[in-house]
């Protein structure tokens, strides 16, 4: 998220839009019916976040190291095959993935976390591999030629030069993750999906929006947060935002 410029304008438009929407909903009498679900929203949002955080953290913890391993010279032979498989994995529809997880792990949070983990893992892994592969070979050659050990090359040269792309993968993956958590309700894992799907069933737009709006806000917030991390923690020399 760029500070100032277009990004600032977009954010302003977004906030203005939210206000306009709020005013419109108030006028139609929907807002009071949303607010009526306040208690549920807070409880379910926490559940929602826990599902997202657990699956997201696992995906990062597995995806980034796996991506690093796949770009090491000695795994070069299998790296191609693994990325092929991973690419194939991304084409499986989310709902099918969740259904599969349920058929193996049963009902409740574990299958939901697992399905979300797989869903989040793929973009993180692919971006980690892409980011590391995009590090110009002369940098690695210079680092070797100056006497860095493979570990030093990874930590001081490869990762810093790939971290922006890796974070971009995490950013997209987590936003998708949060937006997908509502489906977890379908296999009994709770989350804001409960309000959304129940709202649909009962034809109660207030309830539906009480689930949908916080979901959207959470996704935007996480996106913003990681955008800030990208902005401030990626070294200035390799940060396209600065």
């Amino acid at each position, binding site marked *: 998220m760029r500070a100032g410029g277009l990004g600032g304008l977009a954010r302003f438009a977004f906030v203005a839009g939210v206000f306009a929407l709020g005013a419109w909903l108030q006028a139609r009498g929907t807002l009071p019916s949303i607010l009526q679900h306040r208690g549920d929203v807070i409880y379910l949002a926490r559940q929602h976040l826990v599902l997202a955080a657990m699956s997201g953290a696992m995906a990062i913890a597995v995806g980034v190291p796996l991506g690093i391993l796949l770009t090491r010279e000695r795994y070069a032979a299998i790296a191609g095959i693994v990325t092929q498989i991973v690419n194939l994995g991304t084409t499986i529809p989310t709902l099918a993935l969740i259904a599969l997880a349920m058929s193996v792990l049963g009902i409740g949070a574990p299958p939901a976390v697992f399905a979300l983990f797989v869903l989040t893992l793929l973009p993180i892994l692919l971006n980690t591999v892409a980011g590391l592969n995009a590090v110009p070979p002369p940098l690695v050659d*210079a680092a070797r*030629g100056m006497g860095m050990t493979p570990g030093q090359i990874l930590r001081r040269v490869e990762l810093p*030069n790939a971290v922006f792309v890796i974070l971009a993968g995490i950013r997209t993956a987590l936003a998708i993750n949060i937006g997908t958590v509502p489906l977890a309700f379908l296999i009994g894992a709770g989350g804001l999906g409960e309000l959304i799907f129940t709202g649909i069933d009962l034809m109660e737009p207030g309830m539906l929006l009480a689930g949908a709006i916080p979901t959207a806000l959470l996704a935007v917030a996480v996106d913003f947060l990681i955008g800030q991390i990208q902005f401030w923690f990626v070294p200035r020399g390799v940060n396209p935002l600065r």
Partner: protein
Amino acid sequence: MIRLEQVSKQFGPVTAVDRVDMVVPAGAVCVLLGPSGCGKTTTMRMINRLIEPTSGRILVDGRDTATVDQVSLRRSIGYVIQQIGLFPNMTVEDNICVVPDLLGWPRAKARKRAAELLELVNLDPGIFLKRYPKELSGGQAQRVGVVRALAADPPVLLMDEPFGAIDPINREVIQDEFMKLQAELRKTVVFVSHDIDEAVKMATRIAIFRDGRLIQYDTPDRLLAHPIDAFVAEFVGSDRTLKRLRLIRVAEAMMADPPRVTAEETVETAVGRMQDHGHVAIVMVGPRGRARGVVRLDAVREARGLVGEHQEPLPGVVNVKDDLRAAVSQMFTHGVTWLACVDDEGFYRGYITQTGITRMLGATAGEG
């Protein structure tokens, strides 16, 4: 000193380097030269073991590199590549300090060194230390690349076409800077190039490669004067004699301590002095010895009066520090067969003639 003994490198069916024997004396600049794919880079990279030789031995300062740990070997050898390879995530300062940091130098000592090195290549540390590579021009980046290799003061420097990506004008400048640096630091340098002019300018020794074989290993002058075969002759170019002109300074080829006259002396004195030396012209100098003009014999033989009344302007002069190419160029420009040679202050130091130059080329070619 670097010694290669029967060094070969095989890449599958390709013999990239074929039984090369070579000694680079300490403090020498050895330029590896040859057409694309002849094995220059491979030879260079075997010295710091970025490539392991298939057979043969390489000794750096008497130590067999195969017995030294790769990582510590590389930290003791400076490394510069054409793509420069500055780390974009680090400031110029941190880039320069990479090897000192790896070697565990105290932080303050390393940073101080970085500032000193930048000054050596005419980059203001106050401006550049905290910059990132993306904020440098190509020439600035390459200068940083060179000083980064020098940071830990390694005795040996490997450079693979370090100035290849720089435009011709800046390349000359940065070559000159490097030569000045080298005159001071006296590193043992192995320098890969495919530019014969660059090689002639930088090298104490040139190694010509062809298909992985070392064909000729000689001083630039001997290489240009006596190419060992038709391949080398063609590679160094049909203008090789002109190239040799760049290798010799005016001071080496001129006649020093020449006769001269002052403006206050009489024309008869000038004529007498010319006849004594068998010259057809004589340079007129100012009171402290600066070259001011010329008196020509056929113009003043019958004349009377003072030299000052008959002198003509000098048709061009050369600096004693210029190379013979500059001198010959001046001669052609002014259509003359001799030139007065002056030093930086303009003092008259000698004269140089076309026959003198020809004799000089013949003499050095025969040496050794």
